[in-house]
């Protein structure tokens, strides 16, 4: 690598009043240990302070720096420049979300969907405090732990063509989180959640493309969660048809 080497970033720029965005090119210093987020921070600090984007932890935990990097949804803190050098890198906001400004997307729609599945533990009968904790075996924890690793980075939404086609589709992360609570032995809220989940905009909207699982930085496997929810829902529906089934 030549001393003083640079790498070109084509960054999407869009103000709230713009109908469409444009790309602006920046030549930033190339460092082998830099990730895309480092390059964006360099642009903001030394070239263009108006560039807007979200970030926080820089270590794949907060889930706030998700972007489209050369067309792939990824956490910009986890993608190294050296993976692309000497070619240029195209950076865009996550697909299928309204853009607030530049690389920042509007989260309101996602948060409303998240709230609709009641992502908290619902007890049928609340125990008094003095009765102690709700205990679980390691097996009961393992049943839902994978789905609890979601960091709401929304990469799975940007990878899902159904999200792009159907505005009301709940989407991979929200359904995976519903599964996280439905599979928790301390929770009895599956029936309440089913109103949102067992709908055309819920699990039945998913066509099992599977890209949500591929791009997930936490190996949550939302595609698997949705298919398991479909199987559970179908079993439940058929069991109600039986004479001895619950109605």
């Amino acid at each position, binding site marked *: 690598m030549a001393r003083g080497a640079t790498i070109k970033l084509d960054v999407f720029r869009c103000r709230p009043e713009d*109908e*469409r965005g444009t790309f602006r090119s920046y030549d930033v210093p190339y460092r082998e240990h830099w990730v895309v987020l480092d390059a964006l921070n360099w642009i903001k600090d030394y070239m263009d302070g108006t560039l807007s984007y979200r970030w926080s932890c820089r270590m794949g935990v907060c889930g706030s720096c998700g972007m489209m990097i050369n067309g792939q949804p990824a956490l910009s803190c986890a993608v190294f420049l050296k993976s692309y050098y000497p070619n240029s890198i195209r950076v865009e*906001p996550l697909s*299928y979300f309204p853009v607030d400004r530049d690389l920042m997307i509007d989260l309101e729609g996602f948060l409303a969907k998240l709230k609709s599945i009641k992502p908290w533990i619902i007890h049928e009968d609340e125990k008094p405090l003095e009765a102690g904790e709700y205990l679980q075996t390691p097996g009961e924890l*393992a049943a839902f732990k994978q789905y609890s690793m979601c960091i709401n980075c929304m990469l799975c939404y940007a990878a899902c063509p159904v999200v*792009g086609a159907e505005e009301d589709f709940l989407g991979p992360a929200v359904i995976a989180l519903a599964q996280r609570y439905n599979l928790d032995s301390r929770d009895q809220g599956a029936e309440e959640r089913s109103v949102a989940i067992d709908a055309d905009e819920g699990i039945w909207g998913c066509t099992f493309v599977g890209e949500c699982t591929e791009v997930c930085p936490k190996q949550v496997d939302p595609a698997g969660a949705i298919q398991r929810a479909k*199987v559970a829902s179908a079993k439940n529906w058929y069991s109600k048809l039986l004479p001895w089934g619950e109605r």
Partner: protein
Amino acid sequence: MKNRYMTPLGWYWFLQRPAFRAFMAREATSVAVAGYLVFVLILLNAIGDGPVAYDRVVVNLKQPLAVFGHVLVFGAALYHSITWFNLTPKAMPIYIGEDRVADFWAAILMGYLPWLVVSAVVLWAVTR
């Protein structure tokens, strides 16, 4: 507030990524499978019409175009079956106690093994 910019999902979305192309190929093969069912209905109808009608269908089946169509549908059905067998463990994981059986073995248990058994039974019934 006016509508803000959002990356559109163009009609060509399925060309954009290899995984999308594989998905569309998997879905498209179901059209070939459904089409073959129509052919089976035509065959059943010919059987109902008697030996002359049935023999006519059999003769037509030996035409190169019919053979090519069958090879094409067989390939599509094979791709359809294999891709779905591989996906089955995602929807229906198997647990032994608290341990999840590896997807590879689960696919063999739920997909490939029953497929082989059913194929062997059909082969036996046809050739005995």
